[in-house]
């Protein structure tokens, strides 16, 4: 096999003495796709970026060998390095919305690459730009070239970003979490595109935290944690027969395709990130599955709810004749792309948004629409867990203050008692009592989400509305949180409305799943069967996306 486009030997990166990458060695051959899998803080991105000399401010990068297409990168003078960047090595970052200059048309961004690495004239550049856009599968390139990231859909702009990445006809493409911000169906498309690149002989170094993403495209998978590579092999090997415990945990943590009630999280000592987080134990073993009891009481009913927003001149239908029922110990998974009206539905359930038509009843009595005052007394019955936990806490309040506030809800309670209840509460969500004195800002993502769950539990709710409760979390942390939610549901007979764009999560957590598109429920049924034979084309697309 020919000279690999990338060869790394004993790469080490440290920031001010703190070592984040240690002794990483890998090769990427032309026409090969190598994937590094790991969670945030594992050092995978830093390793990849140091290939471009972009490890970051104040990074010390050493390696016995670090060559791109035979050319050593380390100590390369600025100009040469810049020719390498974008020329020999293309870079594709995550979330084009921010990775492309939001103020400039995507065409310009591609044109810049061309201007830097080709000697094409302006006219020729324009031509090439359109070609590239066509190449990455964008319809109507002339229009797209003139549009800005904000005006493109997630998939479109990610494709545009790729176009900009490959414009310099690089021999190696580094894709850092290229699909993370995208809805699953779109992800598939983008991954297919990367696959094509590889087939054309470009070397691809794919960075991702999501095993399911890697699976389809990668020829070889490297698992990374705490700055070291712990496992290497073909996807099949790594996923079917993981050797290293961390890999095991990681694989175990993937919710997709795991039956309802299966414990996902691994024992704490193995979990690299979020070590403090986990209090539960007994990994891997399937816990008792929920007994399917039809007699469980109906808690919340949604009847033909409709909500329309008037933005400027045009109307946006966020919810249209949405109806469903929430039962105790049952989870309804509400899935759909971003903008499909999931969150609006949640807000209506929470009584934050009045429906234009239809109604919501709680325990048989009207809940929404109602004047806020009439609702207030029964507010404790409905709890909410928000997607972005951090911004759902007043930045000036400590965790203790947040919980105390939620516990008392204006009633005057003896401080000692509040304190005790807080400790108790933190215990239930698996946090140390001392967390109470810290500010959310200084907690890890997982801890924050646990705190917001704790807040949701104050006042013994019957219904919890979970709006993307885990989408911001790493897979292993996500596993722990999901387990926690599962446990709580069974302990407290809670009814869940689980809103997520991640079908894997939905399938794992839900008894029933409703597929939402443009505000309408287009498909619904038992989690087990809903995707067996989807009727609606959109549902079908979703199904294809999650099929391993």
């Amino acid at each position, binding site marked *: 096999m020919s000279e690999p486009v990338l060869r790394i030997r004993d790469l080490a990166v440290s920031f001010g003495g703190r070592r984040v990458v240690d002794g990483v060695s890998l090769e990427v051959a032309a026409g090969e796709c190598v994937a590094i899998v790991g969670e945030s803080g594992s050092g995978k991105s830093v390793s990849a970026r140091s290939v471009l000399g972009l490890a970051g401010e104040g990074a010390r990068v050493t390696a016995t060998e670090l060559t791109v297409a035979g050319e050593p990168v380390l100590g390369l003078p600025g100009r040469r390095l810049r020719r390498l*960047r974008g*020329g020999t090595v293309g870079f594709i970052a995550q979330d084009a919305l*921010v990775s492309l200059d*939001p*103020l400039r048309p995507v065409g310009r961004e591609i044109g810049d690459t061309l201007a830097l690495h080709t000697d094409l004239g302006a006219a020729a550049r324009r031509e090439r730009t359109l070609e590239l856009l066509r190449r990455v599968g964008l319809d109507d390139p002339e229009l797209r070239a003139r549009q800005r990231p904000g005006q493109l859909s997630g998939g479109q702009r990610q494709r545009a970003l790729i176009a900009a990445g490959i414009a310099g006809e690089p021999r190696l493409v580094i894709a850092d979490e290229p699909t993370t911000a995208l809805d699953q169906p779109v992800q598939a498309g983008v991954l297919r595109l990367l696959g094509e690149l590889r087939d054309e002989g470009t070397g691809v170094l794919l960075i991702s935290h999501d095993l399911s993403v890697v699976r389809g495209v990668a020829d070889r998978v490297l698992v990374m944690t705490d700055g070291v590579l712990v496992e290497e092999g073909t996807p099949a090997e790594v996923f079917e027969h993981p050797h290293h415990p961390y890999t095991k945990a990681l694989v175990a943590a993937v919710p997709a395709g795991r039956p309802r009630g299966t414990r996902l999280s691994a024992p704490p000592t193995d979990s690299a990130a979020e070590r403090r987080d986990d209090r539960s134990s007994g990994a891997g073993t399937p816990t008792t599955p929920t007994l399917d009891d039809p007699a469980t009481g109906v808690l919340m009913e949604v009847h033909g709810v409709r909500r329309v927003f008037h933005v400027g001149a045009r109307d946006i239908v966020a919810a249209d004749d949405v109806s469903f029922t929430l039962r105790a110990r049952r989870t309804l998974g509400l899935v759909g792309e971003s903008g499909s009206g999931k969150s609006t539905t949640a807000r209506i359930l929470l009584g934050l948004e009045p429906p234009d038509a239809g109604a919501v009843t709680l325990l048989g009595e009207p809940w929404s629409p109602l004047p806020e005052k009439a609702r207030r007394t029964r507010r404790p019955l409905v709890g909410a867990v928000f997607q972005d936990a951090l911004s759902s806490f007043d930045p000036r309040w400590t965790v203790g203050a947040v919980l105390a506030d939620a516990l008392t809800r204006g009633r005057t309670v003896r401080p000692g008692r509040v304190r005790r209840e807080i400790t108790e509460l933190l215990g239930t969500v698996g946090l140390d009592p001392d967390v109470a004195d810290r500010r959310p800002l200084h907690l890890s993502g997982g801890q924050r989400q646990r705190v917001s769950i704790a807040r949701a539990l104050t006042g013994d709710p019957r219904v919890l509305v979970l709006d993307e409760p885990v989408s911001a979390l790493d897979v292993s942390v996500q596993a722990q949180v999901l387990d926690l939610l599962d446990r709580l549901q069974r302990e407290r007979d809670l009814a869940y409305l689980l809103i997520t764009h991640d079908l894997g999560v939905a399938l794992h957590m839900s008894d029933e799943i409703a597929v939402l598109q443009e505000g309408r429920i287009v498909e619904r049924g038992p989690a087990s069967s809903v995707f067996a034979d989807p009727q609606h084309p959109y549902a079908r697309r979703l199904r294809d996306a999650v099929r391993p």
Partner: protein
Amino acid sequence: MPGTRRWLLLRAGGVLFVLWASATITFFALRLVPGDPAEAILGGPGSQAGPEALEQVRREYGLDRPLAVQYLTYLGRLVSGDLGQSYSLHKPVATAIGEQLGATLTLAVCALALAWVLACALAAWSVRGGRVAWAIGSGLELVAAAVPHFWLATVLILLFSTTLGILPPVSVPGPLGVVLPALTLAVPLAGFLGQVMRESLLTAMESPFVTTARARGESEVRIFWRHTLRHAAIPAVGLSGWAFGSLISGAVVVEAVFARQGLGRSLLSAVQLRDVTLVTGIVLVVALAYTVMTLVTDVADRLVDPRTRAVAR
């Protein structure tokens, strides 16, 4: 789009309201002040007006009628586009302002432009030069923003005229005369803009698209001019409307120091002479200019930041 039309109507209504309110406020404010306009009309220092003269003047300018009547007649005239007769200049306010407006606008616009140039240049330089340059840059901005106009003006005169002798200390016809006054106004303003830009510059320079640009092989300089500067400019552009207003305030001082024509000076003397009609007239013009300026800023904002699509308010 109906939304837009409604917005435009509101906007226009707002402008009219602003004009009416500022005219009214000024009119009554100046009538509350001690000191008889008639006395002022009769020529200021060292002159004593005879009773007949004063009576005459009062009659001539309708100062003998009740205030309400004066106000209404004034408004009436205003609606018909007549700004009235200036007490102190013995000529129509419109003419008086017409003579001065150009100079002030020139000054303000030059200063605004200069301020932007200074701010951007400093930012560009300190972005390239690393931590030290950054420190120096922000230090300069701090000091610049904390210098009073009248003092700066004199220092600049001493430096450029008395010592170096390369620029005229007082305004002279032609572009050369604008330099020092504009500079005086620009420096503190540049300080402000710079500080605002620096804040958002930091954020911009940390945002992913900069990484993408680097990964594309762009040089830091190109990145600054093509990407980050524009982001950094957005909040500062939003300030330009306010900046224009502050420039008018500054003009009051600067025009006096550099003996430059302009509304600022007219304003000062008019206020001191209790020349109600003139002051009101100037206020109206400035208010108009300001509202127009904010409109321009909005447009500029849309140009710099296409994301602001939604119909405002």
